Structure formats: C-alpha cells, structure tokens
C-alpha cells in the first residue's frame, strides 16, 4: 500500500486517476440511483456499448483529417446522446419491439466503432482500454472533461430533480399535471448517456454498467429514500474507485476489473442482510 501512496505523491498520472475516480463517483451515485429505481439498466448498457461508434469515428477522423482536438471522449458524447435519443424514441413509440430494437442499436453502435477503428490509419488502437477501461491512461484534459461533464450532469439533476423523480415514478400522472413526461424522460436518458461517457475512461464500455448500477443497487437494499440511496452510492463508488486503484496498482492489473469484482461481491453480500424498513 505504501507503494501506492508514494506513487500518488510522485506521479501525476495516479493523481489524475484518483481525481477522475472521485469526481465521477458523484455522477455515478446520482445517475445510478435513477437507473436502478427507473429500472433502465439495459438501456444504460445499450448506450454504453453504442458509444464505441463515436469513439471509433473520432479516432478515424482524427487520424485521416488530422483533427487533433477530436479526442475519443469528445466523439463519445454525440454518440451517447444520439443513442440515448434513439432508444428513448423507440421505448416511447415501439413498446412491443423495444428489446429487439435496443439490441439492434447496441450492436450496431459497437460495429460502427469497430469498423472505423479497423480502417483508421496509423498505429493500432488500444481497443482494450476502451472496452475494459484504463483509468491510468487519464490525462489532464480528461480530468477537466470529467469535471465539466460532472458539473453539467449534477446541475441538470439538481434543477429538475422533482420532475425527474415524478417521471420515474409515474409518467402518466406527470403528463396530466402539465409537465412533459417525454421531455424529462429524454433528459434522463441524455444524462445517463453523458454519465456513460465518463465511465468509459474508468471502467470501459463493457464493465461500466456494473460500476454505475451495483453501488445504487446495493444502497437501495438499505435505504428507502432516493437521496439517501444517492449518498450511499456516492460513498460506495468512491470506496470502489480509490480502493480499486490502490489494490490494482501494485498488482499491475487493470483497475476496472478490481472495481467491478469488489462492487459485485459487496452487492452479493448485501443479500445476507434484510432489506431495511422504516
């Protein structure tokens, strides 16, 4: 463990990773709670996978047209928002074929990303870092982007908290009170999309869903207010991210693996205790 603390003091890359892990935990805790209570984990998973389309496209255009500013994270944002919008439209419009169409968007997004990466000129792309995440590749610009996205997500949730909760609980009644339930449902999916972009750096496309859902799912077994689930999820996410980094660094294994295993074990253990009642 002392190796880890030495590394924090000596290497900026570890400090960046810690900062990203801690800052994004606030976003994961808040958004994960909405995902779990609204029961849209499969939608969040579909968005996270289709993000690869944007990552692949940004790498391709960056290299072909020498667009230095077009980073994978920047490419991931429109991909996340487009897939969130598409999925939102499908779930509202084609309820009976919802699962099939979401699966199509999921795989199609991934395939587009892989195609772009395959045709991108230059050295091979470290695909594993996007699929399974590598928080140690965090740069200063990633930290800034994480802070900006986290502020945007938390500000949106803070501004529209009651309406988002109402849409999650009862869409029909929300509409009847003159609030556009569809608009706030799309807003919620957009927030989930941005959150998934943040997660790609920490846990990657495949593992991200576990990191966003498991802390909130664990918290929901012991708390029965939305805000208390959010606070517990934030604390758990910080513990998983910081602890995962501290354990994985000396063992030289990817942090995402440790984080997801820890989150899964804690969630499984939570079933040993009774659900809390008032």
């Amino acid at each position, binding site marked *: 463990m002392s190796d880890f603390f030495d590394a924090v003091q000596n290497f900026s890359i570890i400090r960046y990773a810690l900062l990203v892990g801690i800052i994004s935990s606030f976003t994961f805790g808040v958004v994960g709670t909405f995902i779990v*209570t609204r*029961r849209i984990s499969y939608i969040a998973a579909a968005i996270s996978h289709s993000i690869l389309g944007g990552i692949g496209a940004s790498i391709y255009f960056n290299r072909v047209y020498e667009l230095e500013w077009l980073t994978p994270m920047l490419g991931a944002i429109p991909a996340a928002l487009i897939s969130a919008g598409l999925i939102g439209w499908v779930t509202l419009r084609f309820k009976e074929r919802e699962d099939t169409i979401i699966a199509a968007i999921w795989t199609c997004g991934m395939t587009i990303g892989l195609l772009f990466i395959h045709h991108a000129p230059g050295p091979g792309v470290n695909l594993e870092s996007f699929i399974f995440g590598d928080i140690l590749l965090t740069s200063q610009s990633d930290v800034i982007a994480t802070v900006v996205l986290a502020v945007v997500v938390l500000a949106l949730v803070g*501004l529209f*908290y*009651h*309406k988002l*909760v*109402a849409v*999650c*609980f*009862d869409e*029909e*009644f*929300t*509409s*009847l*009170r*003159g*609030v556009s339930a569809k608009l706030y449902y799309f807003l919620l999916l957009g927030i989930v999309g941005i959150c998934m972009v943040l997660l790609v750096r920490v846990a990657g496309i495949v593992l991200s869903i576990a990191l966003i859902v498991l802390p909130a799912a664990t918290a*929901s077994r012991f*708390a*029965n*207010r*939305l805000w*208390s*689930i959010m606070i517990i999820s934030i604390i758990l996410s910080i513990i998983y991210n910081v602890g995962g980094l501290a354990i994985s660094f000396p063992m030289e294994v990817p942090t995402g693996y440790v984080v997801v295993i820890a989150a899964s074990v804690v969630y499984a253990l939570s079933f040993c205790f009774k659900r809390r*009642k*008032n």
Partner: protein
Amino acid sequence: MPSDSKEPLLGPETIVECSDLFFRYGKTLVLENVSFSVAKGESLCVIGPNGGGKSTLLKLLLGLEEAERGSLKILGKSPEKARSKIGYVPQAMRFDPLFPITTLDIVLMGRLDRLRIGGFSKQCKAVALGALAEVEMADSAKRAFADLSGGQRQRVMIARALACEPELLLLDEPTANIDLSIEEQFIETLEKLREKMTIMMVTHDLDLVSLLGDSVLCVNRRVHRHSLPLSGDTIREIYSGGRRIEHDKRARHNHGDHSGCDHE
C-alpha cells in the same frame, strides 16, 4: 329501472358533458354513440364487463385519447384544457412498490404544475399535508411508500389527486387489490369526499357502487345509465354482456348473417 340517458343534462352545474362520442382503436369500435352528463356534486359509478370501454372512457376524460367524433367537455372545456381541475387516482398496484419515495413526495406530485426551480413552495407543502390529513394519513407523511399497506397506498394516491385541488375526482378501480380488513376504512374516506366534490369512479365492486354511487353508468361499447339500487337482472345483463351480444346479433342479422339468430 334501467333508463337510457342519451341527452346530456345541460346547465351551469354540469361538470362533464359528453354527447354522441365515438372512439375506435384501429378498426375496432370501442365506444359508440356515447352520451351522458355528470352534475356538480354527483357521484357516478362506471361499471361494465372487461373490454367494454371503461378504461377508454377514462382516458378520453383525461385527454389521453382523442375521440373519433362527438363532443366531450369538462367544466365547459376540452379534457386537455380542464386537466388542472381533474384529480386522477390510478390503481395503486400499478406502481413499483419498492420505489424509494416518501408519502409526502408522492402527494407533492399533485402540485407539479406549480413547481418552481429549487423545489416546492411552503404553500404547496401545506396543501399536500392538508390532502394527507383529508385521507387521515397526515402522520405518515415521512413514511416510505414501500412500507405502506395496499389500502394506505391507495389513500396516498387519493391525497395526491386532492393536492391538485380538483373539481372532478376520477378513480380507477379504487378498491382493487385492497385487503377486505382495510376496505371499510378506505370506503369511509371516499364517503367523506363524496360530500365535497364530483366523483366518477370506474369499479367492478358492486358493494362500493351501492355505498357511494348516486347513479350508475354501464359501459359496454354503448352506455346505459341506471338508477340505484341495481336489480339482479340488470347486474346479470351487464356482466354477461347481454346487451352487446344482442346488439351484435341484430347487426349480423341486418347484414344477412343469420349464424347467431335463434330463428330457422
């Protein structure tokens, strides 16, 4: 005695006024030539067999569906424009029982149209607490929805509708899935509300109809208004779909299809 009331009772005290309403899902005619009215302070129970069009009528009243033709006015306005004056109580079983939310937060949803950035005003909270007191749940304001019984949840849904300060209360199967031991207490709550506002209630519970209804609207594609008490024959006729079967037989007969006819 059953009596068809196709002519709406027009007047300043009319809360709902529906005339010659038709509605279809795709090619299926769900409501045909529906006319009725609800006077201020009236308690009208809507009954009928499953698939008869009760839920569709409710959706039309809430402005969630649009009629093919005919007129439907609530407080002299279209249902969509009158929504702010309608308190709607859906079936409590529809909700995720584990959703992490307090009773007060649910009731405050009735004030969503008055929500300002930053949260609900003190006035909204006072109205919500008043609505909870009305259904005798004031001391449960901070309890989690998950911890309430079926009857308590249904009363919270009524409080949410009351927080809208409605002139018309629409209830969808209010006693469905409520334990018999709690039902009596729940009915007392509805009886108190009946004194204060106009109520339209979709239900299968004929005991509830006899306790709370001023009259009954039977919906089975067409509507027929009945006075209370309902006779045994009328109840059998409503729930066996007698009217509809007869209507279908006549329609087929008129089109030369005699497969359903009793004659040779």
